[in-house]
């Protein structure tokens, strides 16, 4: 694009434009890209398909659990499976990921268990996994705040030496946040080993991408002094290859990369949202044709790398997973009231200890009244 016509906001092309990196077309045709060669076995593609299908099944079950009152809210990843599985599977065990709040696919790749994932949305805790064990930070609800943590963490890795890298997840809305822009500045001037993975799902609740940016988001990286690339966010192979390359650049001292995964939020923002108030059903229909899972299925079938038996077995596994997710959710015990007071500090303060004791005694007074 030229900046001569700066007065005209750029309306994004639904196709993602000519710079879009794609290795698997919406029709399931495998294509090559000169900058992102991908040598991948049939078994690996089948594994990616399994990830995509299962994480969608998990997501569908969680939405159902919310509708039945078992979860307070759920932020669906529907439509963004490829962006999350592709980037998530590009990570090595030592790599640290900083998610936003919709990265259930990344959490899946990091081995987070269903009850650990759902407990936040059930209102039991703020995320059930141990960030240190999983190398996955807790979800960040404040938009964009985690990108600074990711950058600082990467600066720590830089000081420690080694070849680990960090990935920071955020969305198109977050790209307007000061913290995200500060993270870009920091990562750039300190050459921090971090990949900024922006899932541009076209919508920040009701606000379309035009409300966030006049230029394609990946082009912003140039102004900060590092490369930006737009990848087909519904193409799991391209997301894998592009993220892997960006992580490798980070590992080898080449600093940050901004990856814009061009995708679409096929569901509502959360279970509390009603997208019919602000977008047309026809838009959703266009994106349905670019479904991230269907194209892998088409590719695997057509190339003879998977048969119906394989797809049936994944389907069955999905049914089992859904049952497991449901059970993990409804079996979750309510937290003890006195947990309110735990782990506020590494070293608890005397006043908090006193408050805890007072409240415990208050609760006990009801117990006694019952007897």
């Amino acid at each position: 694009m030229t900046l001569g016509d700066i007065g005209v906001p750029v309306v994004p092309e639904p196709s993602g434009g000519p710079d879009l990196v794609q290795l698997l077309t919406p029709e399931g045709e495998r294509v090559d890209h000169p900058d992102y060669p991908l040598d991948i076995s049939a078994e690996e593609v089948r594994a990616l398909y399994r990830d995509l299908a299962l994480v969608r099944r998990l997501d569908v079950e969680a939405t159902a659990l919310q509708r039945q009152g078992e979860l307070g809210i759920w932020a669906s990843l529907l439509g963004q499976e490829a962006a999350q599985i592709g980037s998530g599977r590009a990570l090595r065990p030592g790599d640290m990921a900083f998610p936003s709040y919709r990265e259930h696919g990344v959490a899946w790749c990091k081995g987070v268990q269903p009850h650990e994932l759902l407990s936040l949305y059930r209102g039991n805790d703020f995320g059930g996994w141990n960030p240190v064990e999983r190398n996955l930070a807790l979800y960040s609800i404040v938009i964009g705040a985690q990108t600074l943590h990711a950058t600082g963490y990467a600066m720590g890795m830089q000081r420690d030496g080694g070849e680990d890298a960090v990935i920071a997840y955020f969305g198109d809305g977050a790209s307007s946040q000061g913290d995200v822009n500060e993270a870009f500045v920091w990562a750039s001037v300190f050459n921090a080993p971090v990949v900024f993975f922006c899932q541009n799902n076209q919508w920040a609740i009701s606000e379309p991408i035009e409300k966030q940016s006049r230029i394609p988001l990946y082009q912003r990286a140039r102004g900060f002094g590092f490369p930006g690339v737009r990848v087909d966010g519904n193409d799991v192979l391209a997301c894998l290859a592009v993220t892997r390359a960006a992580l490798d650049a980070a590992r080898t001292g080449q600093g940050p990369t901004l990856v814009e995964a061009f995708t679409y939020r096929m569901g509502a923002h959360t279970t509390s949202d009603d997208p019919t108030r602000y977008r047309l059903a026809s838009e959703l229909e266009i994106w349905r044709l670019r479904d991230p899972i269907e194209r892998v299925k088409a590719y695997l079938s057509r190339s003879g790398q998977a048969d119906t038996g394989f797809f049936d077995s994944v389907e069955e596994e999905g049914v089992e997973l859904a049952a497991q997710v449901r059970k993990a959710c409804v079996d979750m015990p309510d937290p003890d009231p006195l947990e309110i007071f735990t782990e506020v500090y590494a070293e608890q303060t005397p006043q908090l200890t006193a408050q805890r004791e007072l409240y415990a005694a208050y609760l006990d007074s009801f117990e006694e009244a019952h007897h």
Partner: protein
Amino acid sequence: MATYTLAKALNDGLRAAMDADPKVLVMGEDVGKLGGVFRVTDGLQKDFGEDRVIDTPLAESGIIGTAIGLAMRGYRPVCEIQFDGFVYPAFDQIVSQLAKMHYRSRGNVSLPVTIRIPFGGGIGAVEHHSESPEAYFAHTAGLKVVACSNPADGYHMIQQAVASDDPIVFLEPKRRYWEKAEFDHVDVPDPLHQARIVRPGTDLTIVAYGPMVKVGMDAATAAQEDGRDLEVIDLRSLSPLDSDTVLESVRRTGRLVVVHEAPVTLGLGAELAARITEQAFYSLEAPVLRVGGFDTPYPPSRLEEDFLPDLDRVLDAVDRSLAF
């Protein structure tokens, strides 16, 4: 025993903390080559290198946000916010991110981050350079807040803060940076979160912290000439608040005057008044009185002497309390 300014004592303390633990980092605007606008970090970058004493981009949220990431990775960042009034761009990172991470992660992630803030007025500065934001942070669960008032405390408390596994807002009274006092580096320090009776007395208790401790002491000296024996407590820790030391004092004196530069409404004085009233009601001979800044924005510097509590305003409150 030697004589040090507060700025030099803090510098020595930071140096000792960096010597003691290679994970300790210093980061902020102008903290490296320049040594900080108040020279508190003078010479540290020369001795510890640019990887440990980091001149950051000029963005406060970025300073705290990246410090959080560094702490998650096992580092102990000491962040300098150049002036009190510049901390607000980092407010989310401090109160929603830094303060809550230990709680949110159920103790799996500790964030030993120290945020040094030169605070308070009295130096004739332009706006946003003279504020007292302590109540915001003392109100926030998950943070600890301390204020030093003299070189010895500056030297010891900064090391204790850096060694703490909890995030600490460390307030430095900027108008006292160049005041000197004798102290010995090998003295055994008091616990970080303990108030100190800096002048024992029997007639009335003055509680102050940071820059106001000196004003409280001056008031006690002046009152002595009128035959009044005032006790002065340096609060030192604002969160957790060592109200036990204050309670014990008020039970003896029966009178309390709290002095701070911050506006009185919902300030530390309000909290102390509530606690003392709850726990020492029958010991009180007079209502708890507060001497502080007015409920106005910090005024232009030619009016700051009217805004800031001084010897006479403290003595006026002492008179009112004793007249009860």
